[in-house]
């Protein structure tokens, strides 16, 4: 990083990578989205509400949400074993818990909503990008939601707090903090951190990430508007 805070990929400290989201990219899924977030290329497909298999997982009082985050073997530099790793299982869990507060599951007892995420190419911050696509795909599936979920990471690189850590920065950096926010309800639904932050930096880092989440929200909203309100109707 240069003295005046220009990062290795030419971004300023508080600048996001390029994000583009396409809604409804899959024919078979009830809802879907494709996101490019920097070099991340991620597909999300939503099925349901539908019958739960295995049946014992069904909840008579509420629907359930399941989530699978999976990386394609060709998505990273060294081929990845296609079997789900412990990292992927953990990420699937935190993504599910980040989406759950937004989805109104009470209306669909004994059913499941399945969210499948496939990382076709991975860059830093793939869990956030995956979550952004998954939230849009849920909305595209017409599932009632309290809010969207928007995610973005912040971190510490060369002693400075930066927004949206890329792969190189994640490897060399001092901290990485993925955050997900329900922007209209002001609730943080995912927060992880690895690295080392002073208490003051922790606050700044979180605030920086939250600002990023709100910007991601605008991109998500626009993508949904483009599909559903093409002629400027509301």
């Amino acid at each position, binding site marked *: 990083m240069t003295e005046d805070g220009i990062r290795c990929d030419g971004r300023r400290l508080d600048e996001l990578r390029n994000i583009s989201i396409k809604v409804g990219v899959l024919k078979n899924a009830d809802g879907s989205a494709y996101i490019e977030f920097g070099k991340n290329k991620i597909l999300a497909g939503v099925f349901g509400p539908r019958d739960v298999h295995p049946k014992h997982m069904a909840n*008579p009082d509420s629907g359930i949400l399941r989530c699978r985050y999976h990386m394609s073997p060709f998505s990273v530099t060294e081929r990845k074993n296609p079997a789900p790793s412990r990292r992927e299982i953990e990420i699937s*869990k*935190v993504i599910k818990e980040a989406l759950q507060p937004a989805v109104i599951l009470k209306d669909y007892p004994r059913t499941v909503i399945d969210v499948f995420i496939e990382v076709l190419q991975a860059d830093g911050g793939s869990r956030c990008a995956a979550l952004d696509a998954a939230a849009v795909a849920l909305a595209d599936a017409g599932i009632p939601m309290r809010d969207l979920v928007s995610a973005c990471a912040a971190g510490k690189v060369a002693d400075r707090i930066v927004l949206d850590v890329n792969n190189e920065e994640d490897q060399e950096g001092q901290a990485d903090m993925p955050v997900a926010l329900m922007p209209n309800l*002001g609730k943080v639904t995912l*927060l*992880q*951190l690895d690295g080392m*932050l002073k208490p003051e930096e922790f606050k700044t880092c*979180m605030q920086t990430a939250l600002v990023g989440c709100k910007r991601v929200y605008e991109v998500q909203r626009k993508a949904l508007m483009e599909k559903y309100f093409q002629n400027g109707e509301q």
Partner: protein
Amino acid sequence: MNSQILDQLKREKILDLLKTGKRIDGRSLDEQRPLIIETGVIPKANGSARVKLGNTEIITGVKIQPDKPFPDLGDKGILICTAEILPLADPNAEPGPPNEEVIELARVVDRGIRETEMIDLHKLVLIENKSVIGMFIDSSVIDSGGNLFDACSYASVAGILSCTVPKWEIKDEAPVLVEGVTSKPPIKTLPVSVTMARIGDYIIVDPTKDEESCMDARITITTNSDGNICAVQKGGSDGFTAEQLIQCSETALTVGRKIRKQFETLM
């Protein structure tokens, strides 16, 4: 189904009590259960600890052995923390491959110890890029009474503090054990994990199993001896406001100091 009705009743009782500033076991909101640490419980391990945090009980063993370094980390020793919930620890635990909760538990415990840089891994190298010392810290939950994250983390830290590192000499590029010579592990800092649960608008430290069954969300924050925040994991099916999270980070630091004092007596 029955358990859901029970959870609902428990939740109402727990919430009613929280409104008066009390908890179901009489603790204050930011009070941990008594932590009892016993070390050296498994003499065949290089280090071990048996930790009780309220009704939760963990046994951790540390095994130390020469290993090949990771290809991209040839100048560092190996540190791996695992955790498992034994089938005898909980009526709902099952033998077999770990489920997502157990995987999360193990990864969060590992992250806390790794990211605080508790152990100076550079000091565990025998021959750069070829041979290093591996430390394997395996925790088993033997009785589950809530807050397995902190209990496993404390047991792992206590296990590491209690361990003695054998000495290996290099002969023909292979490590050979030197009998009777050991040293203390290269400790840089003391990580303390503090887990909090949100129930309604209340945030409580060190939730019991009953409190966990009706919590809205959970957060685990690990701090080091210098008062830095090094690892965070939010869990549970709801969220936190930014203000609540900052409050949690402050609580993690203050509560962490007390536990760290307890660790210092083990050194």
